[in-house]
């Protein structure tokens, strides 16, 4: 009996992330791909808004979804120095808890962005939220503060007057914070239980807003790909040691995406790197200057790669060769990245226009549009048969009525 109880307890304690949860920037795999089915494809504002809730501050971080809870960060106050983490019910949008903290680092940023720009991450037990001020808060799922860090207090020149945006990632239970800027530029690996430094490495002295990509290993040895103007540095998350370096440069805004053993890097347009089985090397498979992404990160889905440029043109290419197959003009501009589920790509323009592209159509087809009427710059979350998206003042759940 005791043995059974122990097993049940272990399952409860360790397996809180379910397959359909959205646990970090661009989802559980950091690639914007969801296994959800039954999402609305011909959007209708009368039929498909399950709920809309006002937020008490600004932000462009993505919501996270864990079971029936939605987590979102915002920044408020005159100086944007009130950092807030809110937990909502995914059922009806009601507030389950709401916590506020004082910013410890700089709250200066470009007027278009916000202090709540980076997306939090969760392991299903704790929520790790970072803000542009380089403040990190670890809370349990009931909103109890477990630990905090003020990285700009510790490292006073770690800041960017335009704002920071790199989201946190978890790899081998190490919380990786990318704090790259023109001055005191670094990446730090934190013990997720205590927030203390496990390692800290210097990084190129240049502003960078990308989020690291994690190659999760079935055999227990993850790898983290850090993207910057100097290309990609693959590092071991347990000690920060560099494994390999792709040195042809890369964008500092859209992030790379991983599919299988292929890493698609916004570099010289878009460059596909094939990773060796042992993870120690890579080789370039193809490169295309015609697939250069704008602000949005690329999507690798099934046999295709999708790239959205700054003119709002979505390009689809063969994933094996990088050969462009078709292009489709969407209504941009786009500050957030697209997501995909069940052969449909979902993306929200800065004007607040939701657009769905049917990827099964020979040259892509816009199957649905819906004007949410507020500036949206976040990458949406997909979970529980619904899409969650936020603006500077609201968060929406979009689903078929059956999912309300």
């Amino acid at each position, binding site marked *: 009996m005791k043995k059974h109880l122990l097993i049940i307890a272990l399952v409860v304690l360790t397996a809180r992330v379910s397959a359909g949860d959205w646990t970090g920037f661009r989802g559980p795999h950091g690639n914007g791909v969801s296994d959800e089915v039954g999402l609305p494809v011909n959007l209708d504002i009368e039929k498909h808004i399950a709920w809309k809730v006002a937020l008490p501050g600004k932000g462009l971080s993505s919501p996270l979804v864990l079971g029936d809870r939605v987590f979102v960060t915002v920044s408020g*106050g*005159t100086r944007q120095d009130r950092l807030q983490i809110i937990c909502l019910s995914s059922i009806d949008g009601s507030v389950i*808890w*709401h*916590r*506020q*903290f*004082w910013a*410890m680092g700089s709250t*200066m*940023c*470009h007027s278009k962005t916000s202090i709540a720009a980076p997306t939090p991450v969760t392991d299903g037990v704790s929520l790790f939220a970072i803000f542009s001020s380089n403040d990190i*808060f670890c809370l349990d799922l009931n*909103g*109890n*503060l*477990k*630990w*905090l*860090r*003020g990285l700009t*207090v*510790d490292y*006073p*020149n770690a*800041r*960017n*007057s*335009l704002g920071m945006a790199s989201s946190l990632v978890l790899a081998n239970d190490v919380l990786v914070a990318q704090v790259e*800027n*023109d*001055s005191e530029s670094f990446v730090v690996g*934190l*013990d997720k*239980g*205590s*927030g*203390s*430094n496990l390692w800290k490495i210097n990084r190129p*002295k240049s*502003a960078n807003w990308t989020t690291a990509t994690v190659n999760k290993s079935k055999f227990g040895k993850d790898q983290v790909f850090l993207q910057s103007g100097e290309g990609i540095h693959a590092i071991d998350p347990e000690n920060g040691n560099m494994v390999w370096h792709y040195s042809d440069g890369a964008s500092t805004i859209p992030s790379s995406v991983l599919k299988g053993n292929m890493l698609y890097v916004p570099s010289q347009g878009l460059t596909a790197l094939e990773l060796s089985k042992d993870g120690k090397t890579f080789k370039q498979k193809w490169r295309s200057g015609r697939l250069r992404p704008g602000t949005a990160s690329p999507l690798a889905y099934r046999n295709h790669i999708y790239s959205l440029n700054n003119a709002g043109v979505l390009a689809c290419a063969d994933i094996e060769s990088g050969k462009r197959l078709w292009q489709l003009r969407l209504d941009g501009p786009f500050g957030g990245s697209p997501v995909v589920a069940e052969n449909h790509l979902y993306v929200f323009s800065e004007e607040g226009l939701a657009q769905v592209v049917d990827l099964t159509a020979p040259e892509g087809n816009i199957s649905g549009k819906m004007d949410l009427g507020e500036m949206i710059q976040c990458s949406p979350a997909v979970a529980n048969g619904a899409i969650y998206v936020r603006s500077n003042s609201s968060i929406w759940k979009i689903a078929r009525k059956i999912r309300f």
Partner: protein
Amino acid sequence: MKHTQILLAFLLAVLGNYESSQSADDEFARSVSTLRNVGSEGEGNVAASQAMEYLSNSGKEAIPSLLFEMNGANPFAANYLRGAVEVIFNKNLKEGGSLPLVALGEFLLNKSHDTKPRAMAFDLIKRTDAGVANRLIPGFLGDPSVDLRREAIAMLLIKASGLVKENKKSAAVLMYRQALDAARDLDQIQTISSELRELGRNVNLTKHFGFLTNWNLVGPFHNKGRAGFEEVFGPEKNFSLDAQYKSNNGDITWKQYSTDDEYGMVDFNEPYGALKEVTGYARTTFISSSDRPAELRLGCKNAWKIWLNGELVFGRDEYHRGMRIDQYKLPIQLNKGTNIILVKACQNEQKEEWTVQWQFQLRVCDSTGTAIHSYSKPVSKVAAK
């Protein structure tokens, strides 16, 4: 005999309760102390996590004590304590329990407490009873907390605007003047000055903020490959106004410079032209009436360093990522009498239109942003080269 047993049992119970209460007080104090001892790089976080569990389970009566413990706390500790207050407050609010409004109000009204916990006390009162909070607002006009005085100014602006609409312009002007005197936030100051100017009154924003407008400049030194930021040029070794320095352009000396920009912009491009990959220095004298703590508040989109009386205060090598008033707040200690402020500003190689600026704005103020003015204008009679 029976009575003696009852009395003994009673005494033991009282003693037990006393000990239990004493032990709870000790645990509370220990937990608070643990939070206050959290240091940099996550030091003390593990113990803090345990302390948070204990404190977050405290009753609502603990809220004023936790706010009190924020006095003098470092930013980590203040946030931990805030986290505990948030949990207790929200739990109580959800359960429909009353909150210690009087104790919170008394804490708020005691200006000897730090500004952050006082502003938080106001926020908790507002979330509990907006009516009570609103009645307190007029008293915040000269408050040391910028957040609290902002509330009072906002209220005053509504009233002043009403007076304008009623055509009571004289009364409106005086109310706007009162608001301006108290205002420390740029947006409110700009709103008020615009209204006053609309009403035909003069506003001296340079003086209100306390921007330093009289300087001596020397340059250009090089900043090839952005190396000038680290390189120690002549003015860092000897900032005497009669010094002469070697540069790529030959010998250079200090030039007098004054800015009439309302926001005190010191523009190196004015005397030297729109140069690239160069370094300039600006020097001014500030006369303080006493030895006192103060802040240097800088806005600059170039790489910069600042020295006070020959001691480096801070430096930052970021270029063209943005600039605003009070971008950097640097705590300093002014000496009674003459203080020398030296600013180094480096321009980089970028060619875009938005990278032309080679400038900064600097003011001296207290921690609330209230301008501290130099006792008298520095006199520096150095002939321009």
